């Protein structure tokens, strides 16, 4: 089943997919554009992976000063940076290179500590699409990738759905892609992850307890390009969802 969290008619609702759009828990059936989409579950810790697709590593290799692949390059974001499907993401006027990143998001459903890879997927509630924007102009070499690059308000898009793990027979066999204004700009496949999902859960849970609602953004393949104000960015993963986002300018934020 596919689950969403939406705002509609004065309240926040849990909803599920319906042929006409979505169905609220209270029975109302609505079109996709009749509601405000929120991140589809109560988000705990947000863990993101850098350089987890071999082709993206190659794409960025010019600016990498450390290339060790001994352990996954994991970093943290905060839930405050998240927005839902059909949301707006702010592009500051003074930047030159802001790019999307289409990623498979793995949602933890049951707490995990010292979990081995063979059991790891038993701790997964489901999957979403994430679009994890970065503004490379702000990259500094302290605590890379620094929060000014990666934890900006509106710059992590999550949704539209949380798809139950039971409905995703093999999360390492999913094609993902990004379209900017309808043009295909990024393509990849989750089979090309350097550290796959069981390995990531084993690694992370070896030193920290993961809890229900924690989410792992598993990295992005190559094909990241600059986006501009007015662009519609669609990040899509087969069987998981099609996540739409629009880039907006400073003016809306009174800046």
């Amino acid at each position, binding site marked *: 089943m596919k689950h969403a969290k939406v705002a509609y008619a004065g309240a926040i609702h849990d909803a599920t997919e319906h042929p006409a759009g979505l169905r609220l828990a209270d029975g109302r059936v609505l079109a996709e554009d009749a509601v405000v989409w929120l991140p589809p579950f109560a988000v705990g810790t947000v863990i993101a992976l850098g350089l987890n697709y071999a082709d993206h590593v190659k794409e960025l290799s010019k600016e990498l000063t450390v290339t060790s692949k001994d352990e996954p390059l994991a*970093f943290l974001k905060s839930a405050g940076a998240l927005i839902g499907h059909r949301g707006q993401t702010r592009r500051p006027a003074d930047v030159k290179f802001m790019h999307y990143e289409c990623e498979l998001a793995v949602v933890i459903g049951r707490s995990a500590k010292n979990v081995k890879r063979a059991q790891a997927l038993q701790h997964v509630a489901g999957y979403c699409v994430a679009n994890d924007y970065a503004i490379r102009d702000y990259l*500094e070499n*302290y605590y890379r990738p620094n929060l*000014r690059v990666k934890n900006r308000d509106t710059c992590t898009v999550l949704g539209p759905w949380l798809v139950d793990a039971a409905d995703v027979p093999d999360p390492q066999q999913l094609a993902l892609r990004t379209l900017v204004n309808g043009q295909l700009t990024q393509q990849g496949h989750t089979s090309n992850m350097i550290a796959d999902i069981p390995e990531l859960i084993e690694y992370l849970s070896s030193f920290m307890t993961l809890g229900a609602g924690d989410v792992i953004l598993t990295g992005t393949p190559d094909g990241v390009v600059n986006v501009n104000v007015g662009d519609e960015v669609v990040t899509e993963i087969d069987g998981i969802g099609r996540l739409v986002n629009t880039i907006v300018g400073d003016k809306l934020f009174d800046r």
Partner: protein
Amino acid sequence: MTFLLEQALAQPQGAPLATEAPVEHWQALAAADEHAPAFLPPTRGTVYGTLLNHRDALAAMADQMNAAPYKAPPRAPILYIKPRNTVVGHRMPVRVPADASELEMGATLGVVIGRTASHVAASEALDCVAGYTVVNDISVPHASVYRPSMRFKCRDGFCPMGPAVVARALVPTPDALDIVVAIDGHTVQRSSTAGLVRPVAQLIADVTEFMTLFPGDVLTVGVAAHAPRARAGQTVTITIDGVGRLQNTLIAEGAA
């Protein structure tokens, strides 16, 4: 929602809710040696740590900053997140992982947000503060801050905090607070929030330029150079005058 405080907020274990009471009340309960309860963390928001905000910590790295991998001194505030599994309260034990013989005790002031703060000017930043608390930002010792592994800062229990959030009005000089660290009763470090690269109000302004801080979130002002180290079996006490005295005992991983 606004998180308003006039006194101090804390939650001893066993109490159903975090409750506001005079600072002296919590100090007496927190200081009691025997049969006293541990405390739960006084707030449950996101905890952001700040790096190299002490002039001496910045100076200690000065000769490395223009070389690889850093290549330049930092410009914006350098931040990291202490995830929710790290946050524990006063007197809760902290487990020392089997692969670390000693841990760094990162004594710092925690600024607890009381009102949603987005793109605030420094002149108005303190209006967004509910109060202050004591934070021990624990790390596995590591030399590089280029791209540190999460393993160094994100272990369970690596962010003791408390005992209480003390109302902003009771802490008139957040930029002039002495911080004293004692291990097993012996003072091992003295630092101060005076002379920060970014004092509290400026730090809030520079951080909220790009990310919103929400009520209950904690922003630390950063750790001074030469953080002391402690081992399993030792008790670490961090005292910030007027804010509180946070005490935790380190125990070996696997111990009861």
